[in-house]
């Protein structure tokens, strides 16, 4: 007898699923006579995508830069803040509510302030991507820190481990699975953040493309740009998912 078979994902089924999804879109639109300004046929979007591919690529790179910078900043500051809140009780009753409030404010409401402080360039998009990505990382890292097995924490205390050692050698590795979950949530949010930043004021990036295409009712191009954003986000998500495979000690 071999090891009990764990049902494996079937790539053929997955492929069929996506083909079916695409077909449903393509023919559903035609069948129900959905107007192209609402939802163009997939093939039209494909054509628009292909025709605008060079332009979309250029703008993707702009957005990608904003996303990655904002995300990186969120990861670094998010972990730092979570550690601070976990360790210093007064931070939990002061900084923590500020972070939650920051998360709760409709960011578009802050747009005028953002633009006046940071201008229309890279800065305001970085900050937007950061603001969207920051919170899930803080919360999940805090959750991870609170889940450090108490017997291991006791062990480290018995060893007279310094706060830093405790943090670096025990809490960080123990919180890694939760942190990676936070990153999975944060990455698509960073993308949304950058796009929203571009909506607020920009002259390039995929968000700008969406605005321009919408403004001139080029719906196929709008959707091609939306699709590009989605694909960018998917790729970035799967990069995080791949990296999270290195944190294998989740359930052991």
């Amino acid at each position: 007898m071999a090891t009990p078979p764990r049902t494996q994902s079937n790539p053929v089924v997955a492929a069929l699923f996506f083909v079916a999804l695409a077909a449903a879109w393509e023919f559903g639109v035609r069948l129900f006579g959905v107007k192209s300004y609402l939802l163009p046929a997939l093939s039209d979007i494909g054509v628009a995508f292909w025709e605008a591919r060079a332009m979309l690529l250029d703008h993707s790179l702009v957005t990608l830069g904003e996303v990655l910078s904002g995300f990186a900043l969120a990861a670094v500051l998010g972990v730092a803040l979570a550690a601070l809140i976990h360790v210093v009780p007064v931070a939990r009753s002061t900084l923590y509510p500020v972070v939650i409030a920051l998360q709760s404010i409709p960011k578009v409401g802050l747009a005028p302030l953002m633009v006046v402080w940071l201008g229309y360039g890279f800065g305001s998009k970085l900050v937007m991507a950061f603001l969207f990505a920051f919170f899930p990382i803080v919360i999940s890292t805090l959750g991870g820190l609170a889940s450090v097995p108490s017997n291991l924490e006791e062990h480290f205390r018995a060893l007279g481990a310094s706060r830093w050692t405790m943090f670096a050698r025990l809490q960080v590795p123990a919180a890694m699975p939760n942190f990676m979950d936070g990153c999975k949530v944060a990455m698509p949010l960073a993308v949304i953040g950058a796009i929203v930043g571009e909506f607020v004021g920009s002259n390039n990036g995929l968000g700008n493309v969406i605005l321009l295409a919408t403004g001139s009712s080029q719906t196929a191009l709008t959707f091609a740009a939306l699709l590009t954003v989605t694909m960018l986000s998917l790729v970035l998500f799967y990069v995080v998912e791949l990296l999270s495979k290195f944190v294998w000690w989740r359930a052991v």
Partner: protein
Amino acid sequence: GGTGDAGKERVTFNMSWLPQGSMAGVIAAIDKGYYAEAGLDVNVVRGFGGIRTANELDQGMFEFGYGDPVSVVLNRQNGGKTRMVGTINTRWPAALCYVKERHTIEKPADLAGLTVGGGQSSAMQALVPAWLTRNGVDKDSVKLLQLDPALVVTSLVEGKIDAGECWEGNSLPLYHKRAKEAGVTIGRISYSAFNLDLYGSGILTTEKMLAEKPETVKKFLAATYRGYEYAAANPDEVVGMMTKRFPMLDAAITKQQMVETAELMKDGAGTFKPARVASSLDFLKQAYALKGDIAPGDVFEGASATPAARP
């Protein structure tokens, strides 16, 4: 629209944006009972830009809307069947506003090298390059910024942009108010003053409405223009109606928008001038890479035939 309370036909009008002075005629027609006299029960709702108003109108989400030829043409390009049935802004009401203390902009060529900001749902991104080209200015010499609508005025006053798109009957009074607060003065260069003969916003409906309920359309238009006439004659009373209905409105700004709208209507609102219709379509073909031929009558109901009904 079904049948309303007092046996009246219920129709919905989409304002295409937030309530403001340019909508005074519609509000006046409601409050003065002009629609009721015509057997209509009119419900007004806010909108989210002219393009969405035209598309949602086409979807049958309401019977009438406020919108410009750009919205109609783009809706039709995408298979929609909307039409403008009554003009209000007889010329394109947009201009580029600037701070006089910083710039002097008297002709399109003065814009070269400047950064210009416009709201997201404005047609600036398509219109300005075409307009610059018409006026012999390199379209790439002006940098166009896409902004959150709420941001344009602030950005201009704060010096983040050199010029911002401003609209008579709409955002222009706001520019003056902000400028006053910041201790600067606003200058303005109108598109229509330099080779642009283009209709602005008017009343939109669908071909379906025109075919199935032509009387409703006629009655709606007649009552609406009656309302605008009343508003032009009694601005303070109608401002009162507006602020009562929409408590958040600023009375002074609303009144100024009404005055500007009345001014925009003076050049034959309610009728279609074939020359301006032709010039409008001509310009839109240039600004947008439009597919196929567009007949004036497809976009402007009655443009090639009889003028629309006036009281």
